[in-house]
């Protein structure tokens, strides 16, 4: 059986053992870090740690939204496409001389809008989330290619661009900005899931849709809400990526949905819904991020990287199973 991940309201003074039981994936992460840092001394340099955080932030932020969706028993395949279109819109606004605030806001509104649409067709149309978001994924990718004419939208090197670039490339108190955004996102998500009605309803829906309905709750509303969150967070990831590259790529985010889902599952959340913790997701994302970084640092050739990555993911989830 899965871990009883949401019953922690009682104990405030967590000891380490409890922490381990709750976040078994943490063991995997620690092991991974230990092994790699023995193999390569440069791995644990603060610079590299910041690299990892910066690289992980995109996937982690998307995965945070994905956690909400998966907790309800759904899935969102359109995250990568949302990232691309909101990045493109942001870049084109900035390129046309609009302010950063407007670019960012427009992005987020688009992300929220698409997410809302996902939730709407899934709930009102009673569609399977897999197929509904597969469709929006395709439509949005086409839309982005039309919008950008298949070419990157570049911000150039105006002052505006340089300022905007700080979102993805800058630092605050010498910590990479995207890492700070990531931490903020997770803190807010954790709070919502634990302490607000919508958070509890997210678990409720995934745990038993029928019972949730019979309790007088609108399951449609809960669905719309989680896909909207996922859309907004994908848009935020899109802004960060655009800022890092000083340009928006029409193909950005392709395949990111699988990485995000993998992070969620590695973090111990069940794809059948109702069970899991957002704290696990950030660990899952870090496992994937550390792995990619480590394989590069250790000079593993790219073909073997794939094999190692797959095997490590398998081992991680198996460990998670076994420790139950």
């Amino acid at each position, binding site marked *: 059986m899965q871990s009883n991940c949401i019953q922690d309201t009682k104990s405030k003074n967590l000891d380490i053992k409890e922490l381990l039981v709750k976040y078994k994936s943490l063991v995997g992460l620690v092991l991974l870090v230990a092994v790699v840092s023995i193999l390569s001394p440069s*791995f644990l340099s603060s610079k590299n740690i910041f690299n990892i955080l910066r690289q992980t932030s995109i996937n982690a932020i998307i995965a945070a939204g994905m956690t909400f969706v998966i907790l309800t028993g759904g899935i969102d395949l359109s995250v990568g496409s949302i990232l691309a279109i909101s990045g493109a819109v942001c870049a084109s606004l900035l390129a046309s001389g609009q302010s950063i605030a407007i670019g960012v806001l427009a992005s987020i509104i688009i992300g929220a809008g698409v997410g809302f649409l996902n939730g709407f067709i899934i709930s009102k149309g009673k569609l399977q989330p897999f197929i509904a978001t597969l469709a929006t994924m395709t439509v949005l990718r086409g839309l982005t290619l039309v919008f950008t004419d298949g070419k990157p939208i*570049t911000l150039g090197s105006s002052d505006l661009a340089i300022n905007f670039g700080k979102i993805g490339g800058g630092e605050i108190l010498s910590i990479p900005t995207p890492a700070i955004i990531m931490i903020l996102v997770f803190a807010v998500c954790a709070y919502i899931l634990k302490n607000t009605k919508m958070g509890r309803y997210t678990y409720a829906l995934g745990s038993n849709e029928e019972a949730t309905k019979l309790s007088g709750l609108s399951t449609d509303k809960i669905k719309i809400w989680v896909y909207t969150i996922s859309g907004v967070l994908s848009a935020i990831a899109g802004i960060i990526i655009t800022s890092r*590259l000083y340009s928006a790529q029409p193909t950005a985010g392709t395949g990111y949905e699988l990485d995000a889902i993998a992070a969620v599952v590695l973090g111990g959340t069940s794809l059948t819904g109702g069970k899991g913790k957002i704290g696990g997701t950030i660990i899952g994302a870090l496992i994937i991020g550390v792995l*990619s*970084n480590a394989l590069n640092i250790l000079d593993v*050739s790219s073909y073997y990287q794939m094999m190692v990555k797959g095997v490590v993911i398998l081992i991680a989830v198996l460990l998670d199973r076994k420790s139950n």
Partner: protein
Amino acid sequence: TTKDSGAKKIGLIVSTLNNPFFVDLKTGVENKAKELGYEVVVLDSQNDPAKEVSNMEDISVKNVDIVLLNPVDSDSAIASVMIANNNDLPVITVDRAANGGKVLSHVASDNIAGGKMAADFLMDKLNKKGNIVELEGIAGSSATRDRGAGFEKGIKKSEFELVAKQSADFDRTKGLSVMENIIQSKDNIDAVFAQNDEMALGAQKALEAANMKNVLVVGFDATEDAVESVKKGKMAATVAQQPILIGETAVDAVHNVLIGKDIDNYIPVELKLITK
């Protein structure tokens, strides 16, 4: 098939339209065709050879007069070309060749030569000594193979050491993170050869962030962004393919075929090195 009385039609099957290079190539084809009074039908193979074959089948039931094929892969393109051959549809390959079947002509720049061009440039700049990183394109694509082969052949005559060679899938985002990671273990890099500009631009960002602005980055394609970057002195050079010109040249060849002129079986398009 009954042919329209009106303009003649050219079919263009392009490996992907998710890459600015091919968007330019398509633009070249369309512009020249308009100028010469041809209609163009464009099909996108989305980097999947199987889709390319389907596209060739689909186009063969339409009344096109000739096909310009930009294959995903040179070997699997044989299948597409054979389908055209069976339907008596003339084919000209563009940018990437087909390794079999009956093709009227091949219009492209020479990727092996381009790879060598990059190598020569770096050998010149670095006095044949130094540590080199190579960022490869999509594993298995012919551009990856040919540029890699040309480049590595080129640096054989030097004391260059290829300290890292990793794939970043012709993708800018991947170019960035792969480079960031490489920097972690290798801090004495002298130059980076990226097999296209997208990866080069990503790598350049990583180097800039790590304050390694002296590293020479050479890309391939000469896309707008890359040329801009070379001009600003951020990238050292890019091997200019001229995708628009490739497209236009291909339509010229088509025109010659349709008016009954003979054409060469290889029509090279100039490559040039763009530096500051």
